[in-house]
């Protein structure tokens, strides 16, 4: 289990704390181990030059050319399909034959009715 003074010890190890904290560290198993770990790593890396972090600048949004090309291809293919659909000859379809005979009879009936009405008007 970690010591409650862990953060204070880490700050002290980093040189940000009072020497009085050494009394606690020397008597605390957890904090002593922290100190030993940091000292040993510091010793091992004493000749290694550590580079400062490279800060990544915020870049403008990157254009996704792949998607752009794909979208263009879809548009071209779409137009091509439409064009071929327009210029291709419309396949012949058998016209639906209306019931012309029956239609003529209806017309005849209507004409007869109209004539009868006109006659009635003439009588009046």
């Amino acid at each position, binding site marked *: 289990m970690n010591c409650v003074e862990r953060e204070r010890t880490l700050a002290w190890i980093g040189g*940000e704390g009072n*020497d009085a904290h050494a009394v606690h560290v020397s008597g605390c198993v957890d904090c002593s181990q922290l100190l030993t770990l940091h000292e040993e*790593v510091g*010793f091992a890396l004493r000749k290694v030059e*550590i580079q400062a972090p490279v800060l990544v600048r915020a870049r403008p949004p990157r254009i996704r050319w792949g998607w752009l090309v794909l979208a263009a291809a879809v548009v071209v293919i779409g137009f091509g399909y439409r064009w071929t659909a327009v210029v291709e000859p419309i396949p012949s379809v058998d016209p639906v034959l209306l019931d012309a005979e029956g239609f003529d009879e209806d017309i005849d009936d209507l004409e007869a009715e109209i004539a009868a009405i006109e006659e009635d008007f003439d009588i009046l």
Partner: protein
Amino acid sequence: MHAVRLEDRIDRHRDALTAFLRRRVGSDAEELSQEVWLRVVRSQARFADEAAFRAFVFTIARRLLIDHYRKHQRKPEMLEEAEGQDLENPENQLVAHQLADRVDAELRKMKPEISQVFRWRASEQVSFQEIADRQGVGLNTALGRMHRAVQKLSEALVDLGVLPPGEDR
């Protein structure tokens, strides 16, 4: 009376401390040991037994060593003489480069916010509070990230055989 007893204690542990420091920093050991004893005296801490006093002295010493490594990290030539190592030796150069490459690889493997803390501390000695402000986190988070980075690096150093395996790494 306290001063006399402290002096006796210092005498009892002086050689052990100097030997420990010499293994770490070579010819800088004398100067560093003076600084340790100065801090021990200034602390006015009292210890019932010899073991507690010794632990306190070496705690102060380890803490000062960390400062020393940080200050001299970019000046490896200052440590060459101390350890009898010669970086002109191609073999030593190879080892140094392998270590540097491995450390760099380990830092790249870490989350950026963790490696950033370590890099800022090691390369520019940025304070933890400043790092916390830069990262927009609390001080304890920055401290925890530093420890995490050190822990990861220690694991890599154990794998490389630079550090001996330990229980709590």
